[in-house]
């Protein structure tokens, strides 16, 4: 347990970024329904299942044009 406390200064901000990415990606997916490929359900699963990389992947290659 003590070992873990050492990493608290990292874990909190990383968790914040991760949640912010996840939340913005999910909101974006729910509000837009155009994707370069795949569909809404697929991207939701990817974003929720794969930490950090999922939402980044969505914004980089999954998001359709407006």
């Amino acid at each position, binding site marked *: 347990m003590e070992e873990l406390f050492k990493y608290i200064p*990292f874990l909190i901000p990383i968790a914040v*970024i991760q949640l912010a*990415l996840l939340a*913005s990606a999910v909101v974006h997916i729910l509000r837009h329904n155009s994707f370069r490929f795949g569909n809404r359900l697929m991207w939701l699963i990817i974003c929720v299942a794969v930490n950090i990389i999922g939402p980044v992947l969505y914004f980089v290659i999954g998001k359709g044009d407006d």
Partner: protein
Amino acid sequence: MIRQFQALSKKEFYESAATFRLYILLAVFLLFGMLSPLIAKATPDLLAAIDTGMVIEMPEPTALDSWTQFFKNVAQMGMIILVILYSGIMSNEFSKGTLVNLLTKGLSRSVVILAKFVAASIVWLASYLICLGTCWAYTIYFWGSVEISNAFLTFAAPWLFGEILIALLMLGGTIFSNVYGSLFTCFAAVVVLNAISLIPKASRYNPASLAGGTLALIAGAGEPSQFIPAMVVGAVLAAGLVVATIEVFKRKRV
């Protein structure tokens, strides 16, 4: 000209925000800034946790390990993300034809290229500085203040390499008008640069070493003057690529 430049670079910043490119870059690089010292610090503990019965003697991690991680992350994943996010910088305009309206209003073609390059450079600089600042702060937090020799030269090098990549993407996008052309040009150039670094005599001047190769400087090993030729070549290369892009664009049918 100056007003056109202002108007277009404003549009570029607005676009990076509206397409989430800006936020993704900032978030990812902030993350790298945190992960680098974390990985350095946690590696021995992680290895200990996977108790295989073997006794692995790990030296206590140092600040240098943190910086090693920093250069590795920025030079590999960081650059890949930068390249993917900016792969459409020119080709999106060409494939949709969005520049036609602006060019027929008297927008100068050189301004298009310069504004795009400058706006992308500033976003890249901001992301890089955030990453660097975070990593620096955590490194000091864990290992106390660390003397860094030749800090400016060392840290400017990966940024400069990113600039070369952005210029390559723009040149490729202008020549081929599509994302794949951009990515291919960038990839091919990096392969060529890395091939050149196999020649011992040339490696001193090779910008490929800028991505992560100046690490030795932090450790205090190596002379800064050894890296200056590569920096100069890199800066000239980036500027040359931008000029080449302008020239190609001036001859291009829109």
